């Protein structure tokens, strides 16, 4: 019995330690992020931020677009098969438009970026740790949080909401394709119905979620990198952990935000 309590206690302390480390890292990064801003910050840090934005955002565009296109099409098909029975096929437009702007756009993008960039952050920082590059930054009086993490976080904060908007557009466009082929609804008319069905707060709540997801992905990925101990096998483990933990936390955060928006009447 004592062993069970010991085990539960140990795991609880480990989880609390992890959450505490994430919080400390977040506050340290928020204090350092000014250095990565254009004009007021360090020129080289902003250049690093732009490079990261291209890697997180631009390079992920084809994958995110295709994922959104497929998911939009699936959502429209599944919705139509049920709604058709009630003669309410036109509600597919609402389902796809509202579903994507509020929920699927931010979530799909976050899962794609978590797999691509969250793992890359962990691998990059973990390798820097194993090869003593982080130590060499410290002895050069440069803080790894400011030098490595701040550009990545700022880039994620800008890129992920932008990717989310792209994802929304492609998801909604897939719904338009379905409506055109199934009911011959003209694309322009479809987009007019889409604009009627979504409100500004739907877009805003989706973007708020995507900012939260960006924070989770950047910080979990980087923290896993900083926690690497030992050799290359540890880098591999941290990469896997980064994807698993960030995806899990993104879904938990999504549930919390959705509940908050629902009960506060934002939806």
């Amino acid at each position: 019995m004592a062993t069970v309590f010991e085990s539960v206690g140990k795991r609880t302390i480990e989880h609390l330690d992890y959450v505490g480390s994430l919080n400390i890292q977040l506050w340290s990064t928020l204090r350092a992020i000014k250095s990565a801003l254009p004009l007021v910050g360090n020129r080289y840090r902003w250049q690093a931020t732009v490079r990261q934005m291209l890697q997180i955002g631009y390079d992920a565009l084809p994958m995110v677009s295709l994922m959104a296109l497929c998911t939009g099409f699936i959502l429209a098909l599944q919705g139509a098969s049920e709604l058709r029975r009630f003669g309410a096929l036109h509600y597919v437009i609402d389902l796809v438009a509202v579903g994507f702007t509020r929920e699927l756009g931010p979530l799909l993008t976050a899962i794609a970026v978590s797999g691509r960039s969250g793992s890359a952050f962990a691998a990059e920082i973990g390798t820097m740790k194993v090869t003593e590059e982080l130590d060499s930054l410290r002895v050069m009086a440069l803080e790894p949080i400011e030098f490595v993490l701040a550009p990545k976080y700022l880039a994620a904060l800008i890129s992920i909401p932008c990717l989310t908007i792209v994802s929304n557009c492609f998801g909604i466009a897939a719904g338009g394709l379905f409506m055109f082929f199934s009911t011959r609804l003209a694309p322009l008319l479809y987009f007019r119905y889409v604009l009627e069905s979504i409100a500004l707060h739907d877009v805003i709540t989706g973007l708020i979620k995507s900012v939260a997801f960006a924070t989770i992905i950047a910080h979990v990925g980087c923290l896993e990198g900083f926690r690497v101990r030992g050799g290359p096998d540890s880098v591999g483990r941290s990469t896997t952990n980064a994807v698993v933990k960030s995806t899990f936390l993104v879904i938990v955060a999504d549930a919390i935000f959705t509940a908050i928006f629902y009960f506060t009447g934002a939806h």
Partner: protein
Amino acid sequence: MPMISIRDLVVEYEGRRVLDKLNLDIEAGETMVLLGGSGSGKSTLLRHIIGLERPKSGSVIVKGVDITNCSPSELKNVRHSIGVAFQSAALFNSLTVEDNVALPLREHTALAPSIIDLMVWMKLAVVGLADFGKLHPQELSGGMKKRGAVARALALDPEILVLDEPSAGLDPIVAAELDELILLLKQTFHMTVVVVTHEMASAFRIADRIAMLHQGSFRSVGTGEEIKASQDPRVRQFLDRVPEEIAKAPSVAAHFEKYMQRKEAF
């Protein structure tokens, strides 16, 4: 006042004592070699000298500042006067050699880019890499990487140069070239140099004084001649390359006998 002063330094990892009440003074302009076998604690001592780790007790005073118990800004100031070349070179693979050397200059000075380019070229020329600045670290040989790391360590003209195993993994000719480079740097820039190594030939060539570490304690500290003349059994063992008795015959025989008994029982 010594440039670096180590007082009663105790380091423990998970209850295991790695450094045991070390005391050492390194004078300005001196080349101090920390010599010792694998696991003797020399790299751990080095990490404390450059402020990467905090000890259990004791102090490391660099230029009058106790870096084990100072504010982050004080530690930052001290670090501006220390240049470090790590064992693995630790050059940033995503940057060219030039950019690696330019990094501390760009971050800590307000020099114009053209002046930084000139300074980078000078530092690379000192270590014989002037023609290799455009390459990435992964395109360099082991010896060139280490020289690149020395060039980066020299970027801010530090008063203290710290080198971790500079000749490890290098062929004797390249290792000797690095020794000559260290001597040249000391003569030209009058730096305080701290070198961690287990290469005896290199240690005796470059050292003003040698501190011999064994199991976390200094067994002997003195000039090269004093170390060579030392009668301390551990120092003699290291100098005369006497192996440890890893597998004692009686214990091996007992183990084998036990194994045979177990086999017979089955």
